[in-house]
């Protein structure tokens, strides 16, 4: 059995899909809604069922197993169906709602920031909104400015929302399970470059939770701290490998949760290594990276041998061209260069 588990390297998509299947079996209050979440809606009589299984195939097979009542294709109508998810959550369900790309938040932000985030507080704690929103983030496939953003910093700005960013199949499954069992609104940001990834710890077939609000030390080290989130954690791990070949011991912290942020794990690492490079694919202004930098500057200043350094995209929209897009994205080379500048 141990042997079999050790070889269980499944993709991110597989891990998420498995989590949702298990969650829906566990709790009949979970429903799933979104555009093309199954696909070919209403055409079962013509033999068309589950045509897509979600834009990223994360929800494949759900409609056959759980039926049309709980697995709902929606019109392209984010304000309508995300708002409906908020209402359904307030009235007793646990909806998992797909916002196809995070850039689409613009047409439904009111439902997320004015309703999902605030209902529990402004109603005096008497109504819970256990909605989970999942969305696709990240650059890297020439999708240009509106389909390549990360934007979790915007949502972390709002009290009342929890924001998690898995970095591999293992954390994806565990965070989905935690999010859908959580009583607060949670947004899960799925990075498109991770979808086919099989790296990281093996994914147990059983259900398990990765706690929301807890960072993970992905690689132990003593000379410098690299923090990553989502796909950037993979970049940090690659950079740490290269730094090791140059004789430096880098510690990699996978932040996993943007809100709540795990201050303690970051500070503990920095107090040990005395140097930090913060890697983030979200826009640099008023961002999660700025928050981590401020945390370290304010609470670990006396421990630092060098100022906190950020590796982020420039203050620019995401370009389309294959020549320009790589210049936007933080890469292993940029992280290594930044780390060496700090180390030397």
């Amino acid at each position, binding site marked *: 059995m141990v042997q079999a588990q050790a070889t269980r390297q499944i993709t991110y998509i597989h891990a998420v899909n498995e989590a949702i299947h298990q969650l829906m079996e566990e709790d009949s209050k979970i429903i799933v809604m979104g555009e093309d979440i199954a696909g070919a809606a209403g055409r079962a009589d013509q033999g068309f069922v589950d045509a897509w299984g979600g834009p990223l195939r994360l929800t494949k097979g759900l409609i056959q197993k759980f039926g049309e*009542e709980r697995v709902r294709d929606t*019109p392209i*109508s984010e304000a309508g169906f995300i*708002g*409906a998810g908020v*209402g359904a959550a307030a009235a007793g369900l646990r909806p998992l709602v797909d916002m196809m790309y995070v850039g689409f938040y613009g047409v439904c932000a009111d439902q997320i920031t004015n309703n999902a985030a605030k209902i529990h507080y402004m109603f*005096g*704690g008497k109504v819970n909104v256990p909605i989970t929103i999942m969305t696709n983030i990240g650059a890297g496939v020439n999708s240009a400015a509106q389909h390549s953003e990360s934007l979790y910093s915007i949502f972390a700005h709002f009290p009342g929302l929890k924001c998690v960013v898995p970095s591999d199949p293992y954390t994806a499954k565990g965070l989905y399970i935690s999010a859908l069992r959580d*009583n*607060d609104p949670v947004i899960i940001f799925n990075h498109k470059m991770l979808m086919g990834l099989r790296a990281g710890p093996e994914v147990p077939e059983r259900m398990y939770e990765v706690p929301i609000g807890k960072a993970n030390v992905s690689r132990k080290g003593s000379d410098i701290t690299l923090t990553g989130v989502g796909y950037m954690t993979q970049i940090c791990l690659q950079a740490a490998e290269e730094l090791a070949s140059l004789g430096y011991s880098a510690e990699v912290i996978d932040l996993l949760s943007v809100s709540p942020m795990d201050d303690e794990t970051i500070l503990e690492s920095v107090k040990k290594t005395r140097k930090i490079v913060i890697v983030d694919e979200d826009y640099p202004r008023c961002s999660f990276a700025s928050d981590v930098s401020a945390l370290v500057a304010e609470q670990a200043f006396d421990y630092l041998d060098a100022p906190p350094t950020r590796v982020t995209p420039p203050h620019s929209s995401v370009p389309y061209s294959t020549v320009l897009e790589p210049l936007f994205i933080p890469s292993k080379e940029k992280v290594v260069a930044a780390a060496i500048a700090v180390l030397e």
Partner: protein
Amino acid sequence: MTTITSELTSEKALWMFETMITIRRFEEQARREADSGRLRGLHSSIGQEAVPTGVCAHLRDDDYVLGTHRSHHHCIAKGVDIREMMAELFGKATGTNKGKGGTMHIADINKGMLGANGVVGSNIPVATGVALAAKVQGKDSVSVVFFGDGAANQGSLHESMNLASIWKLPVLFVCENNRYAESTPVEYAVAGTSVANRAEGYAMPGVTVDGQSALDMYEVAGEAVARARAGEGPTLIEAQTYRYMGHFGADDPLSYRTPEEEQYYKDRDCVDRMKAYLLETGTATQEDLDAIDKEAVEAVAAAVKFAEESPFPSPEELTTDVYVSYR
């Protein structure tokens, strides 16, 4: 006078009068409190009492109502305790929302009042989701969302009507057309001549009703609630009504409308017409009605006393209830 439906018992008719007079006395007192500087930012519902009263007469505690920035009348019609409402207006710990919501966010889930909402049109998708929850869970409860003629132009209404129609959700979209979105007249802002007509595009019934008549409201809402409970889907109701006060405390409505227009609607006052109905049908005597009115005045006075004597929230309430749990 409206022909009475056979279903309207004298008990229900009296409840409707009692509800409307309570709303009016509550709102009059709230206005006085605002004028004296003890409260801020009120949107008065005086003149519109019949709309939620006629609808809520058909609702149970497990049916949900969602409202707007102008929602005191929705709350009272749905049975929310006026002492807790007044305490909420005063920002007290005993308020419906522990003093954290105020006039624009009053909610009481035990009474099925799932909240007023300060953003125009924002609650319409939420109400649609509440109806979805009822359907998925196999309940026969219904969801009612009240909104104004201003919200009739928000995309959220159109998206929600479409969704509710394709999924046959048990929801009532009730537009309180009080003729003004803040200061902007409905004939300027709403294309076409009717909000109700917009239902046709979403394949649901759209009904226009005299919102100054509690009996007409009762009749129309009864059909819509029955349709929803039977799984036949949503209805759009356009209740033509009038707000007697300005949009909020400090604006002068005569800066955008005539006294003659105001008088036209006041001559068709919903409370007066309900009184006339009860007297003409012999359901109540003038003394009975006076006694109900007096009770409403006393209940409102008791609510103010309760609010005055209640404690303010403790400072730690600032950061409680942001989350159910946070790390």
